[in-house]
């Protein structure tokens, strides 16, 4: 089987990354806003105060502008596995497609059906009826994230399936192992809560904008307080879950964690694992396998990653060397598999079974085999092939190292920001802190940025694999022509640019406009003491 044109692979990766990152500009806000809306409406139903209904409806309108593009760009994701990753779809569709299908049945149908009622059903449903609809929408969108991340969890740590040489694909064999994959569960909570942080900062930032302008005072003060409290809890939780994920990566994806930490040598290389520094700053050089500049805090790495003071964390250089023997076994596995495909012989099957767990490493060697044909690898040229393929087993360290750091620094920044915001909101001293309010406004896009870098950390750190240790990314693509890829990339670029322009235009327009006068001046609203005189 010939290799796919490397430029087609690169363009396919570029397209997938761009469409996924773009989709993920909108998803976190959806995840978080649905629950914030549900919380606001709950207060409305319990207290009967009109202002909470106004809040639900106004924030719901902004939510709707965001939601539409989230849905639209999600369509692309569901189909792109088939259109651009055909080998991947064939290879793991039996186990990876299932959570996607269940997501449609269990979650997306629920979210999409009830969101129609959430927007259109205000006058047709009872108060509790409408509240139930809002909760079902929130539940649906978050369940959706659950199944998507179960699917992603399989790519990170393939469990619940085994390779079947008779069908040349991974086949599903344990529902429980797939669903209760620790990676999937931790990542689901981490991602959902990152969405809550995004939603909270969105509401808090826009409310801060109104408070700064002395507009919609009561509306803004109440929205701000709810969002700030929601944000304090969420940002603490997102950091905690991030730590849990890091530890899981240490256990199941050592190459990712070493790349995240810029760790070329083993952590005990300096004598003691405990003393190894956690790098604050580094300029990794992939070719020289070292950091050009680095600066870190000693005694932090080991407790942070391994939750221990005595565990050695393997560095990238030794991880790369460990891959050598696995590549050799992988070559044997694939050659046996190809022979088995032709004759279904017992001998070939036995050889394959003996080397099965390393078959993915065999794929890595194909690039460097004579004529890109694995069967042409002989004991004489094997070591040269393996030496080249070894280099491919570690991810791009610079990208992984820095995207992780940006995400993490932002995470801690959110904890601080929400803590101050909640404190001053509870003390009713927001108007005297314009600097904090301005910071809140300017921070609105930052959670989205953190989410994007989180995705890059997770996905770039998994390279060269699309399915960890089973299928390399460059083997997973569809064998298109460059022309096809240029056509689709240009189309996506044009369409998505128009969308984001329209969305930002509308978002700014309606956020500036604020809640409509007849909403904000609702008679039943009992003004809070501090904001007794509305500005309008």
């Amino acid at each position, binding site marked *: 089987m010939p290799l796919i044109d490397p430029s087609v692979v690169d363009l396919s990766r570029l397209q997938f990354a761009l469409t996924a990152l773009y989709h993920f500009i909108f998803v976190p806000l959806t995840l978080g806003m649905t629950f914030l809306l549900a919380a606001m409406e709950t207060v409305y139903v319990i207290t009967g105060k009109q202002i909470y209904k106004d809040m639900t409806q106004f924030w719901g309108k902004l939510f709707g502008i965001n939601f539409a593009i989230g849905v639209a760009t999600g369509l692309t994701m569901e189909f792109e596995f088939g259109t651009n990753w055909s080998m991947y779809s064939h290879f793991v569709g039996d186990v990876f497609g*299932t959570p996607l299908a269940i997501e449609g049945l269990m979650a997306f149908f629920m979210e999409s059906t009830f969101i129609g009622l959430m927007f259109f059903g205000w006058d047709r449903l009872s108060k509790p009826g409408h509240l139930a609809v809002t909760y079902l929408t929130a539940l649906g969108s978050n369940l959706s994230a659950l199944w998507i991340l179960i699917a992603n969890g399989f790519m990170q740590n393939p469990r619940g399936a085994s390779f079947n040489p008779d069908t040349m694909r991974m086949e599903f064999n344990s529902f429980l192992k797939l669903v209760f994959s620790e990676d999937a569960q931790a990542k689901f909570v981490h991602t959902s809560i990152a969405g809550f942080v995004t939603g909270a900062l969105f509401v808090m930032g826009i409310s801060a904008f109104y408070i700064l302008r002395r507009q919609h005072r009561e509306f803004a003060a109440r929205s701000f307080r709810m969002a700030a409290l929601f944000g304090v809890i969420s940002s603490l939780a997102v950091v905690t879950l991030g730590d849990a994920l890091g530890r899981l990566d240490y256990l199941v994806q050592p190459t990712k964690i070493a790349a995240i930490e810029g760790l070329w040598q083993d952590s005990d290389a300096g004598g003691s694992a405990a003393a190894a520094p956690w790098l604050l700053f580094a300029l990794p050089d992939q070719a020289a396998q070292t950091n050009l500049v680095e600066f870190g805090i000693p005694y932090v790495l080991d407790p942070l990653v391994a939750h221990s003071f005595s565990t050695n964390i393997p560095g990238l250089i030794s991880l790369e060397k460990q891959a050598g023997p696995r590549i050799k076994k992988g070559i044997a596995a694939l050659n046996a598999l190809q022979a088995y495909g032709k004759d279904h012989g017992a001998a070939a099957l036995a050889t394959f079974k003996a080397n099965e767990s390393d078959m993915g490493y065999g794929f890595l060697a194909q690039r460097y085999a004579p004529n890109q044909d694995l069967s042409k690898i002989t004991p004489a040229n094997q070591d040269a092939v393996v030496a080249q393929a070894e280099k491919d087993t570690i991810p791009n360290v610079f990208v992984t190292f820095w995207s992780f750091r940006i995400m993490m620094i932002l995470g801690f920044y959110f904890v601080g920001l929400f803590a101050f915001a909640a404190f001053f909101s509870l003390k009713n001293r927001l108007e005297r802190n314009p600097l904090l309010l301005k910071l809140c406004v300017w921070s609105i896009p930052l959670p989205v940025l953190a989410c994007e870098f989180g995705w890059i950390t997770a996905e770039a750190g998994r390279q060269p694999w699309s399915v960890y240790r089973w299928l390399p990314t460059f083997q997973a693509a569809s064998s298109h022509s460059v022309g096809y890829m240029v056509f689709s990339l240009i189309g996506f670029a044009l369409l998505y640019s128009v969308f984001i322009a329209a969305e930002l235009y509308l978002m700014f327009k309606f956020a500036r406009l604020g809640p409509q006068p007849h909403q904000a001046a609702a008679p039943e609203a009992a003004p809070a003491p501090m904001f007794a005189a509305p500005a309008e």
Partner: protein
Amino acid sequence: MELYVVLKVVWAVLLGVLLSGLAVMVGMDMGVGTLLRFVGKNDAERRVVLNIIGPHWDGNQVWFILGGGAIFAAFPTLYATSFSVFYVVMILLLFSMIMRPVAFEYRSKVDTKKWRGTWDWAFLISGALPMIVYGAAFGNVMQGVGFHYGWDGQYYQDESFIFYLLNPFALLCGVMSLALSIQQGGTMLMLRGEQPIYGRARKAAIIGGVVGVVLFIIGGFWVAHINGYAFTGPVDPGAPATPLSGQTVAPVVGAWLHNYAAYPILWVLPGLGVAGMLGAAVMNLAAKPVLAWWLGAIGWIGAIFTTGASMFPFLMPSTTNPSQSLTVWNAAGSQYNLSWMLFFALVFTPIIICYTSWCFYVMRGKVKVEHVADDEHSY
């Protein structure tokens, strides 16, 4: 029969159910999108048209997404191959599909002629193009597509996309699919619209139904003269699913009618298709849109199951390497996977049907121009 074979057959039927659900529900919204510029002569009317399906389009669209997910899981090799082989049209389909949610949400948000006029065109494109592609995909798949597999299951494409873009039989299927979507969409507009939208929608729905039924019948005769595919050797339906299984297949003119010759009871399916489409047109003529809607749905189901029954067990034959044609037997997921998927389908489908019906029930009644103008949540 062994369990695995039963599961494969059940999932083939469920594939038909999904494609029917998609055609009826998404097709209806697409038809409304196509008709928007023609049944709504001014902005107030067009807003009424959009608000008729406003609360439902998002839920309906999940049929499309679920269709993709279910084919991915239940027939992984079919998903992997068909979406890649049809790359250019799949991407065009995606481009037009992703315009639609944005158009719904954004159109009414700015009150200028230029803004709204632009989104109205987006509705036309995102309504008509996907339906043509949907029908044409059936037409192309029936004639086979040029592809083959490497030893590891990677597909290779053997022909240019020009062939499946400009293919007369496929175009006929595409136009038929568009006509049926206009029938279903027009009927929906009659259900919840008033004059003058009602009258215009009725005319479009009747024309759609008649065109649909005529093309369906022409297609039926045409099929006798195109290549179908038939096994020329033994087949083991329960074998592990791989297109490299060693089945032997050859193209045979008229083979797509063999199943009907062997099991004449199957003629019920095209019968249902014709009766449904024609009946819907008659009921629309008689101004009975509720009956027409259900008959139109039966028409769609009849047409899709007619195609499925004529091809069974083939899913996507290969013109360049017929023995690697995809069938229900060699493209399905594993037994374990199909069992779990069936479990989830059995649990959730009734629930989905319940809440979808409830949603339509809550939003029942006519949409009036003044409602749309008053309600700030409307599109």
